[in-house]
Every structure is written in C-alpha cells, then in structure tokens.
C-alpha cells in the first residue's frame, strides 16, 4: 500500500468517492443556475442579489465551492503525481512537486475563503 500525505482523503477510495460526489454537486449547481436564468428572462441586479442572499442558496453555493475545492485538490494532485516525478523530470522532482502541491492546496483554500467572503458580503 502506497501512502500519500498530500492527497486529499489519504485513501484512494475516499478520494474516488469524493471526486464523484463533488462532480454531482457541481453539475446540479450548474443546472440550477441555468434553469434560474432561463426562467427569469428580464434578470436584474435585485433579483440576482435576492437569490444569493437567501440562506438555502448560500448553503448551496458554499457546498459547490467546497466541492470545487475538493475536486480540484484531488485532480491537481493526480496530475502533479503523474508528471512531476523523479521518473519524468529527475531527482529534483520531489522538492518541486511538494512546492507545487502546497501551492495548489494553499490557493485552493484561499479561493474557498474568498468565495465565502463574497457570498456573505452581498
């Protein structure tokens, strides 16, 4: 069994499951927003702000943001462990990979906090 300290859930199965569940959440969010836009032909700022001020919508948006963060973390981690490896780019790979992984994780968390700030700042 291969251990992985920078992976999202530390377990392949949990990462795999999270990847699927978050994909569904994101898909639902896209569908909902698309449906809302279609159902509201003369959309203005007030309606758009009202939607996003409601608590259920805030929760839904937050859930989606968390999903995007988790999904990106798992996906980016896969890409980095595929290509930034000793096999692919030589002995410095581990240091470079850790740098990118920590950078990716920091950015993801930062975006998430920023999204929360926007959502509750409306």
């Amino acid at each position, binding site marked *: *069994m291969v251990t992985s300290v920078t992976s999202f859930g530390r*377990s*392949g199965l949990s990462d*795999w*499951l999270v990847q699927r569940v978050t994909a569904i959440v994101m898909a639902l969010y896209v569908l909902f927003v698309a449906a809302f836009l279609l159902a509201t032909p003369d959309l203005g700022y007030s309606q758009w702000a009202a939607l996003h001020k409601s608590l259920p919508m805030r929760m839904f948006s937050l859930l989606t943001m968390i999903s995007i963060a988790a999904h990106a973390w798992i996906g980016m981690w896969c890409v980095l*462990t*595929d290509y930034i490896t000793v096999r692919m780019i030589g002995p410095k790979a581990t240091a470079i990979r850790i740098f990118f992984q920590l950078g990716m994780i920091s950015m993801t968390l930062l975006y998430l906090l920023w999204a929360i700030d926007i959502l509750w700042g409306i």
Partner: protein
Amino acid sequence: MLNVSIYRYNPEVDAEPFMQDFEFDAQGKDLMVLDVLEKLKVEDPSLVFRRSCREGVCGSDGVNISGKNGLACITPLSEAVKGNKLVIRPLPGLPVIRDLVIDMAQFYAQYEKIQPYMINNSPAPAIERLQSPEERAKLDGLYECILCACCSTACPSFWWNPEKFIGPSGLLQAYRFLADSRDTATEERLSKLDDPFSVFRCHGIMNCVQVCPKGLNPTKAIGHIRNMLIRSAT
C-alpha cells in the same frame, strides 16, 4: 517487398537506439509478425526478441506492432501492415535491454505485490474444495491472463507510476483471487489496495482492453475491485 522497420539497440555497441529498415518478401502469404522476425533473424542473427510457444499462450513476444501492443505470434501481417510498412518496437514504458527485449522486473514486481496465490488457511479436505460451476464461471476472463504485459505497457497511468500503480494486468489477477470462492483473504487483499495509487490511478482509459491479445477486460475487473472496496468500506 514489404518494408519492415525494427527498433534496434544494443547498449554494448550502439550509442543510442535507431530504427533499422529491412526489405522482406512475404511471398504473398499472410504470415504472422513472429514469422517475419524469425526469418529476419536468419539473415541477421544479432536481432534479438523473446519467443517461446508461437501460439499466443506463453506471453513471451509482446511487442509494439505498427503502434499497437500485441503478440507477434498471433498478429498476422494483414492486420499489422499499414501502407506496405511494418513497424516493430519494444513494448513502451519499460526499460529496453536490447532491441525488442524489455526489462519486465517492474511489471512482475506489481504482479507479486497483489499476492497472486490462493490464501485459505482452513484445513484442506481430503478431496478438492468444492466449487459450483457458477462460482467457477466468475474466474472466466480472469485466469487466462498470460502476463505478456501488452496491457500494462499500453496504460498511461502505468507509464507515469509503474512503481505505485499496480497496472491492469496485476489488477486483473488481484480480482481473479478476490473473485475465487475458495479464497478467504478478501479483507486482507482489499485493505492493501485502498490507497490513491494501487487501484485508483486507473482512469478508465481502456487501452488495456483494446490491446489484450486474449480478449480480457482489466477495466471491468478494476471496476469490480472498486465496488468491493466500496462495499467493505461503507
């Protein structure tokens, strides 16, 4: 005349690998690619490749034929030749020892990792352990693997992480033992597979299914393993 282009590399002599062209007269026959290699070796005995059974059951002569992994002995020219040209390279992704011969140590190491043997510590009966035809049928499409490495060396995930990702061949065998009603180590086997690499580097690309010379389906077996993991972990 058929143009046959073969990957050559003898580290004792060659600074780097090169493609060597041969002219070959198949005399209108639909020979197997291995027949072509054998005949070319008569002309140039320094050409090196593995072969044994010449009927597709021993798994020695996996090579990359005009871009697709397969067994030289059961791939006819009619399938392999494109525009009067036949290109033969070693299987990709593993180190080349010489010409078409690759170092398969990493491939075998992944096979050994899945404990490819029956585990059942209950006392054996005086006769065979009974198994119904239905239970036995679950092993069809699994036990036939010949360890030729065509699948694993066609798999990008295996190219990138051959030390960590078990690869389609090893996973097919892992499921062969998980699916066997006589094996009792299911939990132990599953617990060794639940990391982000061993199984889950399979992204369902399905190159393995496309190239398997025995018509087996490792992707499906991997799906079964995943389902078993979900069942045991939730």
